[in-house]
């Protein structure tokens, strides 16, 4: 699978209250959540994003609360991949569970700027900078997590592997 899009850059410690403020957590419609994605720091973010765009962020992306609404809002904006120096652990779990790709590639941060175009080849496992042609390897997930991803998410994995009650 290939994804092409432009880069949206964010700094360190982007927290879940910034990704989706708590006052919207009474909403579960992903489309409405998406409209408020990143609202405190980038109003109208979702209307600027095109499908296939990617987020490139600093360390500890998604820190704070356990709200799954956060990766859901990002994904529904049209973002398929978030690349960060590191992710907060609950966000990382949630993203994988709902099918938002999250990769830790620390060196990519300094080599991209907002608006750069990137090509992501998930099958071959690399990311290419459209202009500089620089290539970055997508790190492999631990085998256990890869199984979950291959099953199509946590719930399908569990349904397959857990005896039916």
């Amino acid at each position, binding site marked *: 699978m290939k994804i092409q899009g432009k880069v949206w850059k964010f700094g360190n410690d982007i927290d879940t209250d910034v990704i989706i403020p708590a006052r919207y957590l*009474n909403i579960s419609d992903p489309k409405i959540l998406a409209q408020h994605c990143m609202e405190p720091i980038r109003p109208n973010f979702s209307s600027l994003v095109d499908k296939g765009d990617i987020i490139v962020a600093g360390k500890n992306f998604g*820190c704070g609360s356990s709200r799954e609404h956060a990766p859901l809002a990002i994904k529904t904006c049209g973002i398929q991949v978030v690349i960060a120096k590191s992710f907060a652990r609950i966000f990382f779990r949630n993203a994988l569970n709902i099918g938002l790709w999250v990769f830790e590639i620390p060196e990519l941060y300094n080599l991209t700027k907002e608006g750069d175009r990137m090509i992501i080849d998930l099958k071959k496992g690399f990311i290419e900078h459209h202009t500089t042609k620089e290539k970055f390897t997508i790190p492999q997930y631990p085998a256990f997590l890869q199984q979950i991803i291959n099953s199509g998410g946590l*719930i399908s994995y569990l349904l397959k592997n857990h005896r039916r*009650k």
Partner: protein
Amino acid sequence: MTITGKIIAAHSNRKNVSPGEFLMAKVDMVLANDITAPLAVKEFYATKRKKIFNRNKIVFVLDHHVPNKDINSAENCRLIREFARKFKIANPFEGSNGGIEHALLPEKGLVNSGDLIIGADSHTCTYGALGAFATGVGSTDIAGILLTGEIWLKVPETMQVIFNGKKRRWVYGKDLILKIIGDIGVDGAHYKTIDFSGETIENLSMPERFTICNMVIEAGAKNGIIAADEITRTYLKKVCRRTPIYYKNDPDAHFCRVLEYDVSKIEPLVALPHSPQNIKSVYELNRIHIDQVVIGSCTNGWLEDLRIVAKILKGKKVNKNVRLLIFPATYQIYKKALSEGLIQIFIDAGAVVCPPTCGPCLGGHLGILAKGERAVSTTNRNFIGRMGHPESEVYLSNPAIAASSAILGWIGPPEEIGLK
């Protein structure tokens, strides 16, 4: 092995586990609230499975947007209530039987030493104070547990924090945890366990221990843990009917990092906007004027906190430019505060006493900040827009500093109102 390692091993049929391993673990108690349960319940329904893993091990707490703040919140609560009724969930809490989840579960005896507890709320880590392994996850993970009673975990490394020495006046558990977050940063314990020990911890009450473990997530930790001792045992004996298992770190347990503190050097601290790691001593601040003070939450809404606040507010008046909101963490705490006369003191001083709810802590409802407004809060997060407008500001402190600030009109310690 460490305590965390031992608890995870015991729940995954293993003799040994090592940091970095992935495994499936059995869950003793699973928790979700009115924000996270609806997504979990919907995912459960989507699987078309007819059975949940164990109705006695599921806890639903309606605490974030309650009493229902709007129609959407009301629908969410109804969805949870219907699920709870349909599957005869043993522990649904709301109304005067409820309160804020992380104060409520220990109070109801649903947390035991040696338990493995997973909650769809990041502050589930609070229960580490009772010697349980407890951590937060998202809604899909909860749906998975509803189906199977199990969760995948990566075994964390453990970082050790040792507190020795006597606390200064106006220093509490809150200041100790703020000190660590300030020192190691908001991802300083990324994916790790923080194990707290030392003479100071041994002398701390349960509420202060809860406050400390509550905020380990603010340093990126997976869980916090305090080995059970006499104080834990006395607490559990009163509330929990299950038999506890008390784990200890092995003498050769591996710690990836060790931090030692002389507590007598720690001053009352304030976390400045917009990060819990922006720590300053309250004595270093120059008159930062405030519009609101919030006292409560799963961090500092304990009875003990309210007693501290009452001592400071007694016979005084809240500054005319400040709105003081006080939220006891649970109804049981509220009732005790009432019978001890604390609520009377609060109202006489000019405070608004609110029902136990998360309310302003997450900018949900009750006490939202306007543009440019500033609040001191005993809660745990001061991210951009956490309590309202993106241009509002939140300063985190312990309950004593919050109370004296409410009287002063700026952020200041109780000494400034003449208390020693």
